[in-house]
């Protein structure tokens, strides 16, 4: 295997290309289940259909989230949105046998997994798929999720990235531990505050050396973590100006971390609502939004922040005049909820809705729809828009969340991809056999034991 042949550039150079990934969403409010053409969220056929359509469209990667605890609403499982999903790596291993090229990305948590076990399973996925596996690294730090695990909620919020980094470094050493593709393997030791790992790895390097690392998380700590460790970052910044600013920020962080300006790729989440004409696309968007946020979802969304039942309120009427319950009861009130600021937020929202003349439903739609990440328009207009992203290198790719399963990628693959190919900004074939090759990533430098000692936590 080639080792790091490209010179480390201090200057960012746009690739001039856009790649696509698809995020098959599990638990979420964006996937429409009410339309007659909406299929199962758990049957293998839905996953196969989306993955094979994506592969027909030369998508770089297929992503799955991770479920560790069901969302709750007012103390019970949340009833209104799509819920329930298969285990990411098990599903991806199955998809590996019915796909040839597409990358297979598993979201896996560093808090509720053991490094040696997770590294082994990711290496397994990488081997059975012929070098197409990736790990989307996420962290969790709450006792509510920990209630499903032996280790419980043991991690302080402030420690989660420290822990995650030690975890990732350990995983890299496990993947790097084979002297040659045939072995033998070096013993890997890690003694940290959270874990002790003492393992002699069992699996050889894959065709792509080791799984590609994705990272999701937008805080300064998250960005620095990505700049040091990841190959690709999901950003929350798909809007053009934001995307350009995020690129600049990430390039600076990558250089500060001693990596090249192009070392970390950017692939924000996105949603596409496309049609032959702009007018049809706008109409389609109304339809999509009405099915994503129905009257019950609108009320339930406010209930998360109000901490009380609001079913007496008319979804087509104004926001509730009643004040929210202030104390922070549990995780289940939503990640945006902050107890002390509940009343302030309610006042602010009421004023905003009144100002804009929005009903509860319209207001919630404006808060929840992926306004920033939605590309709406005709195939040609959106292709032109993305060509500009490619030209300046605003992003390396977009991670598409289809709002319909399993047919949600059909119009993108059948109509948008050919437009992008005509403009010369989208691949016309897979570049190689591995995910690392599809993305044009460098072969990783073998991690040295000395470097690892520095980040022990």
């Amino acid at each position, binding site marked *: 295997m080639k080792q790091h042949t490209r010179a480390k550039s201090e200057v960012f150079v746009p690739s001039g290309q856009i790649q696509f990934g698809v995020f098959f969403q599990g638990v979420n409010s964006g996937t429409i289940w009410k339309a007659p053409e909406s299929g199962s969220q758990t049957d293998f056929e839905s996953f196969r259909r989306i993955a094979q359509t994506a592969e027909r469209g030369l998508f770089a990667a297929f992503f799955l989230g991770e*479920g560790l605890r*069901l969302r709750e609403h007012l103390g019970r499982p949340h009833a209104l949105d799509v*819920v329930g999903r*298969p285990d990411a790596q098990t599903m991806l291993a199955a998809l590996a*046998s019915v796909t040839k090229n597409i990358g297979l990305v598993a979201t896996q948590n560093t808090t509720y997994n053991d490094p040696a076990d997770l590294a082994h399973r990711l290496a*397994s996925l990488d*081997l059975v798929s012929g070098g197409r596996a990736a790990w989307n690294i996420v962290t969790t730090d709450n006792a509510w999720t920990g209630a499903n695990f032996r280790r419980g909620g043991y991690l302080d919020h402030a420690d989660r990235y420290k822990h995650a980094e030690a975890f990732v470094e350990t995983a890299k050493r496990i993947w790097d531990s084979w002297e040659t593709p045939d072995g033998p393997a070096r013993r890997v030791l890690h003694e940290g505050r959270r874990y002790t790992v003492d*393992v002699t790895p069992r699996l050889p390097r894959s065709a792509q050396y080791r799984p590609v690392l994705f990272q999701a998380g937008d805080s300064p700590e998250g960005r620095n973590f990505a700049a040091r460790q990841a190959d690709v970052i999901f950003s929350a910044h798909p809007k053009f100006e934001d995307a350009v600013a995020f690129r600049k920020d990430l390039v600076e962080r990558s250089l500060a971390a001693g990596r090249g300006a192009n070392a970390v790729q950017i692939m924000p989440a996105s949603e596409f609502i496309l049609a032959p004409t702009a007018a049809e696309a706008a109409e389609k968007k109304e339809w999509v939004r009405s099915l994503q946020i129905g009257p019950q979802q609108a009320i339930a969304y406010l209930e998360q922040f109000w901490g009380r039942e609001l079913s007496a309120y008319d979804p087509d009427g104004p926001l509730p005049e009643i004040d929210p319950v202030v104390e922070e009861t549990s995780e289940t009130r939503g990640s945006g909820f902050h107890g002390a600021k509940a009343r302030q937020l309610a006042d602010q929202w009421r004023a905003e809705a009144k100002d804009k003349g929005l009903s509860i439903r319209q207001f919630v739609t404006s808060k929840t729809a992926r306004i920033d990440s939605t590309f709406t328009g005709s195939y040609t207009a959106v292709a032109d828009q993305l060509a500009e992203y490619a030209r300046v290198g605003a992003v390396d790719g977009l991670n598409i969340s289809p709002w319909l399963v399993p047919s949600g990628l059909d119009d993108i693959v059948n109509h948008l991809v050919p437009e992008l190919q005509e403009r010369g900004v989208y691949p016309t074939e897979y570049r190689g056999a591995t995910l690392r090759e599809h993305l044009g990533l460098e072969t990783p430098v073998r991690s040295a034991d000395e470097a690892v000692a520095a980040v022990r936590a």
Partner: protein
Amino acid sequence: MSTFENPGFLAIELDGAGWDGADLTRAVLAAESAGFHAATFTDAPAPGRANALQRAAFAGPVTRSIALVPEVDTVYTEPFHISTQLASLDYVSGGRAGWIVTAAGSPEAAAAVGRSSVTGAALGQEAAASIEVSRRLWDSWEDDAVIRDVATGRYIDVDKLHYADFQTPAGFPGAGYSVKGPSIIPRPLQGQLPVLAPASLIGGIPVDALDAVLVSAPTPELLAAEVRDVRARVGAGVAVVAELDVVLDARGQAAAARGASFDGGRAAFAGSAPGLTDFLADLLKEADGVRLHPASLFVDLEELGRWVLPELRRRGALRPVVQDGTFRDLLGLDRPASRYATAAAAPAGAGK
């Protein structure tokens, strides 16, 4: 010729396949077309061996009838992860998944996750706790929990989801723990996956937590007697599966000359295909099934598929292979109702 009142089934251990996807596809398709009812995937630590559950999952979409049964450790793996991974295997295989429960007793397995080593009777208790967690989580969504009711806007009926609220029992040897639930995935297609365990773990694992036991003996001669002993301990409700290493005369070489080395402590049959056929025909009168561990996967599999299985089938010793059937169907198990299902909908005592 003897007749079979209860034809049996044959499983094959696919450990001889490598980690490569193409190898796995070839192996599981060869086993399926040879007429095996089940393929098992060992997970004991060995260089070059990929995760068993993922190998089974990989085999799911390319097969139609063969049950896929990985070993999954219960001591150093999170029970919540095990449960959702196995349920997912059931989804990707169309209801053909099972679970061979193992309990890692080696200091190496403990060191890998930084825990103290578990040994002796505690292994069975760890395994029992993990089985109980999985079974509760598999039941935690009633079958009709996903309602997709457009009129009320409800995707699920919350009354049909249940917290598992598992707590390790008093006197649990390791660090006690709890698992809240419900599962993150709807109930597996089979409701409950068949759970298999080596007979050595019985005791620590209550018999009624198991659907099948794997029985070993030091020699082929002792195997049928051991099967009868275990049958007497577990009763008729638990399938008894005999474990047998196999090396056959093949490709012009006598079995003895093929230099097979077995180290699993299992009974080993070395000889001709007709000899093995007779041996299995007798053994299947005592055992519900036999799991074969071939000395060389593809060499022995070819002989088995060409000579042994067709003759056993002709003699009526084997159950028919059912396309799109479930593993529970193969074992003669009904699909149980969730233990949490309301009394009106299900009979009581629906456990495993």
